[in-house]
């Protein structure tokens, strides 16, 4: 991964200390952390709205901030596009004037074409409207378009869906998906919602208590079992990459290949050869030492046990490998002991349900 953005900052404000070293490359880098973990402060620092006490921020080899050399580029010169939690549209300007603000007021002449951004985000029909007539989801889409049209070198999305209700969030997610794949601008996506991250992100940085807890490709970080406290147990699971190898029209099923292992899932409307990304929650997987017969579960996949974490409570977290990919399994501690699971052992993963989180279109 070539780093587009490199951040190494230390800050202290009102009993809260932040010390973050992280980098983001092309594609979507998710910044995950609970509320109050310092995510928005970090966004402000990258954008030039908050001055870190010490540190260095570099974007595409341009130094935005360097406390040692006294460099602190003002926000207008940073070329960091920001979409805030609230859309922050300018109420006295039409949607069109808002979208073009970076050009007529910001002097960003090398901006992408208005028409292209409008069709990417579905804004054509609302161009002449006033911001106060827009729904929350529409306003957020305009804010994204406005940031894109200011020709930023990187786009920071600071929990852009957090002010929207469930239905509106579901409305806007597909647009973000398109943005991630088609805009070509590197994106840092700040969120504490796992579904958004697993759907959109390529890389993941987990922030906790003002520091970086883990970072790397999203599939790897998500399946790491030591991150339970930071990421939340209920949603814990794995992201796997697979490829469609065929369809079973009679039963409405699609067959996938995951590093040679076969997986059957409810039909996906895409041709054979399409790369897809699957989310499998740890609690939807069971383990067996022998392939069970006469069972309704269709997906019985040979795995290798990599790591076992016994916990205080009744559960055990088991990290298994399907080829090179991680599959996280949550079973009871008692089962783990009775099966005599140990790292290196072979077993069979019984996978009940699978969520297809994204068709990986452009990349992978």
């Amino acid at each position, binding site marked *: 991964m070539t780093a587009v953005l490199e951040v190494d900052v230390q800050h202290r404000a009102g009993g809260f200390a932040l010390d973050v070293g992280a980098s983001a490359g092309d594609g979507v880098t998710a910044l995950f952390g609970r509320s109050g973990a310092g995510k928005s402060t970090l966004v402000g620092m990258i954008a*030039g709205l908050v001055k870190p006490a010490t540190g260095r921020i570099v974007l595409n080899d341009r130094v935005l901030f360097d406390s040692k050399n006294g460099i602190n580029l003002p926000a*207008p010169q940073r070329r960091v596009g920001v979409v805030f939690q609230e859309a922050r549209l300018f*109420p006295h300007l039409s949607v069109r004037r808002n979208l073009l603000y970076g050009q007529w007021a910001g002097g960003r002449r090398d901006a992408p074409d208005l028409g292209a951004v409008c069709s990417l985000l579905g804004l054509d029909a609302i161009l002449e409207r006033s911001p106060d007539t827009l729904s929350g989801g529409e306003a957020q889409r305009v804010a994204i378009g406005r940031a894109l049209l200011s020709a930023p070198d990187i786009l920071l999305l600071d929990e852009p869906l957090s002010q929207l209700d469930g239905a509106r969030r579901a409305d806007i997610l597909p647009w973000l998906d398109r943005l991630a794949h088609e805009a070509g601008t590197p994106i840092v996506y700040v969120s504490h919602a796992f579904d958004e991250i697993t759907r959109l992100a390529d890389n993941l940085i987990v922030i906790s208590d003002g520091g970086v807890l883990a970072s790397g490709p999203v599939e790897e970080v998500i399946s790491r079992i030591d991150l339970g406290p930071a990421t939340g147990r209920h949603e814990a699971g794995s992201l796997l990459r697979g490829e469609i190898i065929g369809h079973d029209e009679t039963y409405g099923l699609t067959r996938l290949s995951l590093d040679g292992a076969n997986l059957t899932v409810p039909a996906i409307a895409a041709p054979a050869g399409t790369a897809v990304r699957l989310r499998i929650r740890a609690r939807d997987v069971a383990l067996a030492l022998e392939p069970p017969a006469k069972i309704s579960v269709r997906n019985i996949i040979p795995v290798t046990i990599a790591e076992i974490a016994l916990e205080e409570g009744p559960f055990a977290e088991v990290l298994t490998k399907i080829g090179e990919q991680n599959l996280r399994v949550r079973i009871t501690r008692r089962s783990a002991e009775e099966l005599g699971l140990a790292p290196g052992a072979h077993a069979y993963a019984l996978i009940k349900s699978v969520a297809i989180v994204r068709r990986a279109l452009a990349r992978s």
Partner: protein
Amino acid sequence: MLSAEALSALALSLKVAALAMAVALPLALTAGYGLARWRFPGKGLVTVLVYLPLVLPPVVTGYLLLIIFGPNGAIGRWLEQSLGLVLAFRWTGAALAAGVMAFPLLVRPIALAFAAVDKRLEDAAGTLGAKPGIVFFTLTLPLAAPGIFAGVALGFAKALGEFGATITFAANIPGETRTLALAVHTALQRPDGDMLAIGLSLIALSVGALAVGLSEFAASRIRGDRRA
């Protein structure tokens, strides 16, 4: 219907008030923005100075102007010697008196309007590439516009009807400094002046009511428009 005397007083008042606003508005914008947004040493003193004419007896304000801007005043003498500009007992002096008296009414709504502009919008504009000066003229000023209109309407009405400071500093010279309020005062001194006084008062009443109405309308726009 209106006598030549009344028309002359009205025309002079409009001229005086217009000049007063033209000079006072840039200062009021600076003062209003500064009071709303800046922190600086002596801010309390500046606040007192800006709002003092509101509570001081107008005749005292006029007398102070005479001391400072009069023929023997420090600034007055300098203005006369270097620029050939005489304010005392001239219509321009009436404008100065009216402007000073109207200043607090002008600044107050402007300061409130600037304070009400959401700074987060300005931050957003900055990330889009707009430099602070551009942000001020494309965002802050238009968003504060209703408050500025409200201030100008109030200040203009006040300047139009100013009496105490004007008569003290600029005197009551027909055609030069006898504005609407001074003309009413003069008419009341005359045994046959009742009709003229009533006519002039009606003019003052309608202009004042119109200005307050406009100001209130503009102020309602400040509250209604604020949305992030």
